[in-house]
């Protein structure tokens, strides 16, 4: 009987340690770049803070003239497909070298209606880190042979619809290298996807119960997550982050570990925002088409994030790859 007092005493000690451990104990670094492989940290850190003055001025030159002046080499991989005229757009992309490796460096974007039209820019494209803390890293992300540690994103205004040419310029060892691409800008009226400010479609997203208990049927992440609430029941009760993504069946290298990011940010915002992950393909088979919630949102690509305020209106939407910083900014629009 003498030892029966041990349990409460130890509990008290542990509780006390829990209460004050943050003061005296070591703290894990809160720097997102610290999660990036050590060999890349310096480059990624620099790539997060580009300044327009570090890039050539467009000063009336055509995009082609800029490209000729700088010299090419890498390729540009776009991480989005929907761009609207008459507003500022997030243009996310990766710069990829001839060995399919990501080119890290300070990066900016130039745009023009055509290669021989006058260029606008530079629009700086800070690197946004894609690597999550270890607890939130999926098996897919952990076993990726050559994962992208970051994605670039610039805020670019497009005045009119139509084709546009892009030139990404990255400073590698102080020297610029350029990569080109093209996009199609559409009129907002032609965009069927719910826009910021609109009421989100009241879709029923897949739940473990609706899948008959088979969570792997509605989640290709490994291990599966528990972010499978029903959007139609949650919307209007609290802000919701609705993420359409398929970790296993992602069609490009720049779709990023967005579900991992959602899990990490849920740890910080989960008490104020409901997080829902909706898989993309019917029966997780790309040949069977998109699941119903994506059809109701008129989506044709993945991943997509919609942040919906408590009033049911969309406060932010992100397409393609997005890092933790962009994800967090989007979440804050609903708070």
């Amino acid at each position, binding site marked *: 009987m003498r030892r029966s007092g041990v349990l409460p005493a130890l509990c008290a000690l542990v509780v006390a340690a829990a209460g004050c451990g*943050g003061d005296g104990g070591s703290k894990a670094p809160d720097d997102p770049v610290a999660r990036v492989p050590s060999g890349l940290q310096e480059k990624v850190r620099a790539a997060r803070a580009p300044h327009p003055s570090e890039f050539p001025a467009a000063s009336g030159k055509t995009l082609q003239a800029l490209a000729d002046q700088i010299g090419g080499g890498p390729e540009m991989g776009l991480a989005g497909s929907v761009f609207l005229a008459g507003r500022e757009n997030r243009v996310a992309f990766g710069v990829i070298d001839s060995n399919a490796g990501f080119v890290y460096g300070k990066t900016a974007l130039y745009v023009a209606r055509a290669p021989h039209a006058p260029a606008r820019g530079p629009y700086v494209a800070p690197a946004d880190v894609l690597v999550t803390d270890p607890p939130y890293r999926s098996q897919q992300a*952990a076993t990726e042979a050559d994962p992208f540690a970051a994605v670039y994103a610039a805020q670019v205004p497009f005045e009119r619809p139509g084709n546009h040419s892009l030139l990404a310029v990255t400073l590698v060892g102080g020297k610029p290298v350029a990569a080109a691409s093209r996009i199609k800008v559409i009129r907002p009226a032609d965009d069927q996807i719910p826009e910021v400010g609109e009421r989100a479609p009241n879709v029923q997203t897949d739940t473990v119960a609706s899948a008959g208990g088979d969570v792997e049927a509605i989640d*290709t992440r490994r291990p599966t997550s528990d972010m499978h609430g029903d959007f139609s029941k949650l919307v209007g009760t609290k802000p919701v982050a609705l993420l359409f993504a398929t970790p296993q069946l992602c069609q490009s290298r720049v779709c990023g570990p967005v579900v991992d990011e959602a899990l990490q940010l849920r740890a910080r915002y989960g008490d104020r925002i409901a997080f829902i992950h909706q898989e993309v393909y019917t029966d997780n088979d790309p040949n069977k088409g998109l699941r119903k919630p994506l059809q109701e949102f008129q989506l044709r690509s993945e991943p997509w994030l919609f942040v919906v305020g408590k009033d049911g209106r969309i406060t932010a939407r992100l397409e393609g790859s997005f890092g933790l910083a962009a994800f967090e900014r989007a979440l804050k629009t609903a708070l």
Partner: protein
Amino acid sequence: MTQRARLAVLAACALGALAPAPPAADAHGLVQRTNLPIPEWLFGWAAALVLVVSFAALALLWPRPRLQEPAWRPLPGALGRVLGGRVVEALCGAIGVALLAVVIVAGYEGGGSSLDNLAPTFILIDFWVGLVFVSALLGDVFRVFSPWRAIRLPGIRPYPERWGRYPAALALLGFTWVELVSGWGDVPGELTNAAVAYTVYTLAMQAVFGTEAWSRGGEAFAVYFNLFSRLSVWERRDGVLGVRPPLSGLPRLDAPPGTVLFVAVMIGTVTFDGFSQGRLWKDLSVDLAGAIDGIVGLDAAPKVVGTLGLLAGVLVVGGFYRLGIDGARSVGGELDAGTLRRAFVHALVPIATVYVAAHYLTFLLFEGQATFYLASDPLGRGWDVFGTASRAIDYTYVSQNGSWYLQVAFVVAGHVAALALAHDRALALYPDARLAVRSQYWMLAVMVGFTSLALWLLAQATA
């Protein structure tokens, strides 16, 4: 139903399980084995062949019982007395209590998901799976680290003998239900509620029946890990640590009421866990849940189906064992079924061990690494107490093929061990060695069935 007719039914069930493993189910998982030198079904046949050869070798080369009266030698000098002494026991008990306290605090105060909270990883991986390996290798470690046994209570009434191990079997079934069926088995708060409830229940039972008596028959984890520890060469007797021949702890297992059920729960729940990861069960369970969701509700339907599946797993394993016993009884020897069931139940423990070892090996090797970063930051608050918070899970240090070979090796070795134990017991039980061998024909069929089932489940889970 006559015994002959019952045997026919049971044999039909067994033949279904003995059939060659089908090709892998629809590929839908992330990690799949590639480039195996021979197909998976051939592994099944090879494993069965190993058992048959082992059986023949046992019949020829093992003519007398060897494990029934095992030798035990204390460790030399004062080492055995120190390691098995009360000081070490008290220290380990205090560590066990402290760990339980840490897990409870983490469960309630830490992050809201299993990803950033120590409690689920500690309970479901380190404790539930890791301690099986530790027990089989190092002996009854849990007996000295148990936080509940550390609190010694004399009790106020004797433990009812007729209860035997039934309370432990039911508690074990309850734990596996929480883990596999509840849907909240890895939610830190809910799982911690269950741990606290179990702690309160255990301490209350210890207060009534005494700590030692309850640990022997009622405390599920004490019984569970003790059974695995009987495979180990390490044994503590009268406060002294010593060594014994491998496996020789099992023939000394007493078999009060509920022991067969307990072992059937051990194997049956792992069987269900493996089966539930395959396409066959997933399709079936979705259909069944769809059929009853109008009656019990959409949320409850998968749990009802899962509960039935879990119970079916236990029944199937119990049926297998009964088949072997009824078959052994049919060869003669004047031994009743109850005597035979109790006499051979210890032979199922190696099978339970390899079912756990094979089924949860990659779970322990990979997801178990989460312990490193969670130990540094058990509450998910950004701490780095041990400097391991940034150590991520390495999924590459054991290949999928490598883990498959290990799993197959576990399964075969465990079943050969089970055959040896059953053979040794039969030699001691039957007056005639030829009768003893004949009684084991049925046990061989049961072992081959269990082996095929184990390999088929592994193939299902990783298909």
